[in-house]
């Protein structure tokens, strides 16, 4: 492994390279694509949560103006279920039988000449049901329980013995509600067939998975399937899977023999593309009077769909966050008649951290210790499960630097002791230890005879800045000006890339780009190996460096030549090289692979009579390993912080008992912060490149969100003396 040296291009706050396209409206999102003779589709959703379809009458729908096809389970072709993926099984294939497993389940698709005609006709489909009693409550004793769904339950030491040593034990139940990932861009799919060849524009975070899945579902060669997603209107996890509506659009296109476009409605987004499942968490923490943690026990249960998988090990974070000799974590899932949950920004961590970091605050209060001190006192110097040193960890700096920036020392410990006129002031903090995640990735790099570089991989940029940071990285590694580097993504014909998810893409892709660029430089050296006219002839990769479009010998800039000179002299149009990255292994490295760390400091203002809660300011200090672009990384943390405020104070997907209908499936009713709710947010990065990979990034897409719920809850406690253990923290829970 050759580590990326600190350069001038990487790290700088370069403006987004795709910004001009976006602000001028020329970036094409999936629903911007239109084709001659394109038809439009609309979905029919079930209005019960459990049971069977007794009859389905499409007569009126068929007779409506412009209708081209109506497909239900009565006339749908047999479809295979999609394959196992990195994220578990694929969602069930739609329209395969008369069973209803959740409200809003797609039970038909209508294709018409216009979107309005399709929607109108979809409303004319008459369905009679044979309803069954729906299981909707995670505590319902009748629900099937999946124990230890991911094999991540942990146990070390002896928690019973540990609690026996404790002077103080906090044993509480924390709950988090369903949240729905709502990228601004409604998920859209445009599909067209040419024989067995299929082209799909889709709001996906993972084009290769869409390609593989659709090829399997429709039994066509994968080589003939092309999936395009150069721009998507956000993701937050909603685009990680090949959902039913994608399959149905492809099916519809084959039915009518024309391109078909489907754009989900906002209410459909609440039942069709995943959500963060609710959780009930029992957390028990024992500590000595001196603040040493002696035992942690964390049990989490989450809701999951009847016939689907979802990765939500909510308690796992409690096993790795602090040094504690006796820890037991257990996760379970309850199968319910709910729409399939899925990863929503910081899955599991977003829920589990709320319980852990709030309960730790309770312990600190119980023993009269500063919440900051108890975290530093129990700092995990090594990975507590593996017993290995971290590949990088600057969480201590996060806490110390954050406390300084925030002015934590001004906090007076007594709840309600800080005021500003009518407002009570509260300070709260939380720590975050985000897990490492990385999966294999590939990229291809080329340099053309004019000296420009072209690098590509089938990744997606869901707004995180992938286009920009990979352009910077390639520019640095090839010594080519950023303006002369083009990085492309979002096309399944490009080299394989994993999903934009798990805060793992930048690491996986960055290291693949690193490998491709290094190999490409070596290709150039190979070309001139026996070229006596080249000042580089015979040079090895470690002998040279790259700047200003040139390769030259280290320490002797005169001994080199440009890419253009080499290619021209040898009559080569362009040289290309492939690179791949594979995740490092802790055992091989002798280091525990580290994700990002962070400390969040929050000041709230509370009007106790009216229950009004305002976040006044947030300081986030993040160890994200190497930061490729300070501006886009800061934006990630800012966006995550807004998401965290949203989780803490606003978001709650409400489900009608009985019918399982989502009761607030619009932006008017499902609350998230508006600008006026978002305070000044300070973001600071500490630490340095992670030692486990060449590029040394750790992924900052999710760490920004985690910790806000606990920090805000802890600040509310500091303001009021009232502990809110159930999210979101709203007026009705705050009126004193």
């Amino acid at each position, binding site marked *: 492994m050759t580590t990326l040296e600190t350069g001038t291009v990487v790290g700088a706050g370069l403006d987004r390279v795709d910004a001009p396209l976006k602000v001028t409206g020329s970036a094409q999102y999936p629903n911007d694509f239109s084709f001659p003779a394109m038809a439009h589709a609309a979905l029919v959703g079930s209005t019960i949560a459990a049971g069977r379809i007794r009859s389905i009458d499409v007569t009126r729908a068929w007779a409506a*103006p412009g209708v081209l096809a109506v497909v239900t389970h009565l006339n749908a072709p047999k479809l295979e279920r999609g394959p196992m993926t990195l994220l578990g099984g694929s969602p069930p294939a739609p329209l395969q039988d008369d069973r209803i497993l959740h409200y809003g389940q797609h039970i038909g698709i209508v294709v018409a000449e216009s979107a309005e005609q399709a929607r109108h006709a979809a409303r004319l489909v008459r369905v009679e049901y044979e309803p069954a009693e729906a299981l909707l409550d995670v505590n319902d004793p009748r629900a099937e329980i999946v124990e230890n769904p991911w094999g991540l339950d942990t146990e070390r030491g002896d928690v019973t013995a540990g609690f026996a040593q404790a002077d103080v034990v906090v044993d509480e139940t924390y709950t988090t509600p369903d949240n729905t990932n709502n990228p601004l861009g409604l998920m859209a799919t445009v599909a067209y067939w040419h024989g067995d060849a299929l082209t799909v524009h889709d709001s996906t975070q993972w084009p290769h998975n869409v390609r593989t899945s659709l090829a399997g579902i429709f039994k066509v060669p994968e080589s003939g399937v092309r999936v395009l997603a150069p721009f998507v209107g956000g993701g937050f996890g909603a685009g990680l899977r090949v959902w039913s509506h994608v399959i149905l659009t492809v099916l519809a296109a084959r039915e009518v023999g024309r391109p078909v476009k489907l754009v989900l409605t906002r209410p459909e987004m609440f039942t069709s593309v995943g959500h963060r499942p609710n959780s009930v968490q029992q957390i028990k923490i024992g500590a000595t009077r001196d603040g040493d943690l002696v035992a942690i026990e964390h049990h989490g249960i989450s809701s999951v769909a009847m016939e689907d998988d979802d990765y939500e090990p909510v308690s796992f974070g409690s096993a790795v966050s602090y040094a504690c000799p006796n820890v037991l974590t257990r996760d379970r899932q309850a199968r319910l008649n709910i729409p399939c949950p899925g990863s929503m920004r910081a899955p599991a961590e977003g829920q589990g951290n709320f319980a852990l970091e709030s309960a730790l605050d309770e312990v600190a209060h119980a023993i009269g210790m500063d919440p900051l001190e108890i975290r530093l006192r129990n700092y995990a110097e090594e990975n507590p499960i593996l017993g290995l040193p971290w590949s990088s960890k600057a969480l201590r700096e996060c806490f110390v630097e954050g406390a300084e920036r925030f002015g934590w020392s001004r906090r007076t410990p007594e709840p309600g002791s800080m005021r500003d006129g009518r407002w009570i002031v509260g300070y709260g903090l939380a720590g975050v230890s985000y897990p490492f995640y990385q999966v294999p990735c590939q990229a291809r790099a080329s340099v053309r005879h004019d000296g420009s570089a072209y690098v590509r991989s089938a990744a997606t940029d869901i707004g995180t800045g992938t286009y920009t940071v990979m352009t910077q990285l390639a520019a640095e590694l090839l010594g080519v000006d950023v303006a002369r580097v083009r990085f492309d993504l979002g096309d399944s014909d490009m080299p394989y890339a994993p999903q934009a998810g798990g805060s793992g893409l930048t690491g996986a892709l960055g290291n693949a780009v690193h490998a491709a660029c290094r190999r490409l430089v070596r290709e150039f050296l190979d070309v001139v190996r026996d070229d006596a006219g080249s000042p580089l002839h015979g040079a090895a990769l470690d002998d040279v460096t790259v700047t200003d479009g040139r390769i030259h010998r280290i320490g002797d800039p005169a001994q080199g030549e440009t890419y253009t000179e080499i290619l021209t002299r040898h009559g080569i149009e362009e040289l290309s090289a492939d690179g791949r990255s594979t995740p490092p292994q802790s055992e091989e490295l002798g280091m525990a692979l580290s994700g990002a760390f962070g400390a969040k400091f929050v000041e709230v203002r509370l009007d106790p009579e009216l*229950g009004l809660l305002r976040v006044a300011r947030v300081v986030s200090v993040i160890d994200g390993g190497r930061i490729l672009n300070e501006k886009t990384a800061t934006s990630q943390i800012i966006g995550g912080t807004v998401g965290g405020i949203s989780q803490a104070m606003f978001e709650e997907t409400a489900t*009608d008992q*009985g019918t399982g*209908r989502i009761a607030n499936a*619009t932006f008017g*009713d499902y*609350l998230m912060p508006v600008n006026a*709710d978002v305070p000044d947010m300070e973001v600071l990065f500490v630490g340095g490149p992670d030692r486990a990979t060449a590029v040394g990034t750790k992924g900052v897409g999710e760490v920004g969100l985690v910790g806000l719920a606990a920090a805000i809850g802890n600040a509310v406690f500091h303001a009021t003396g009232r502990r809110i253990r159930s999210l979101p923290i709203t*007026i009705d829970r705050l009126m004193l």
Partner: protein
Amino acid sequence: MRPFDYVRATDTEQAVAVVSADPHASFLAGGTTQLDLMKDGVLGPERLIDITRLPLGGITHTDSAIQVGALTTMEELAADPVVRERLPFVREALLLGASTQLRNMATIGGNLLQRARCRYFRDPTVAACNKRNPGSGCAAITGIQRMHAILGTSDHCIALHASDVAVPLVALDAIVHVQGANGTRSIPLTQFYLPPGDTPHIENVLQHGELITALEIPLLPETARSHYLKVRDRVSYEFALTSAGVALVIEDGLIQEVRVALGGVGTIPWRAWDAEDVLRGARAGADSFRAAAEAALEGARPLPGTAFKVELAKRTLVRTLETVAGAAS
């Protein structure tokens, strides 16, 4: 969306005649409610009569009132200098509603006629909604209740009237001028809205085809002070959990004139007559304010999901009274 005909009206009388004669026709003004409901499949008019080109805009002033054309937008009304100076709580209520974009489209006539925000009313897949489908029941009563009413409810409907500006307008005894097939009439806003009772689908006293042409808003005495306070989960762009519109004239610590109305709690914009009775002639202060709040909410019929609103509405009113009294003293 169901297919429909679109007609742009050029003459008020003719527009009224067309809609009056056709039970499947509706007026279209700003469209900020009407079009949403059509897209969601809640309303399905076969003919829309666009009245936005009719001469029903503009604001005129007299010494005692302002006359507001029905097509005046919420932003235009908020910007009126007399409203700004003499009716500050009307301006506050306007600007705390919706968003700038919506306020630039929404008309004052349309605002008064806005339909319930109830998600059970607005989702046609919900079978039980007496407002949408008379006699079918009310899913909200056993559903998610948090955003619903606690005053003026019935066993048939608990939907909230969510207008902000209607709150100070009922407090001011504004008058609605309407034109129908049989001529014009004037209706006090306090008698304009109908609580749901056992006919939740009938929301006001207008006959089909009657068109609001103007709104007359009496001015407050120059010595009056007023304020509109809106309490909600987020700072902007949300309907009220509770709100209060208050105008007071206080002399020597005694309340000489009082107007109180509540929002976020009523099936109609809620004039708090009982609170006014408590306050009129009373000494402005914590005791009379709390007594007024108790009186205002005495008839509340909360459900489990709205129980918190009773106390929140009282505190909202007390805070508003304190604010106005503080400014008046």
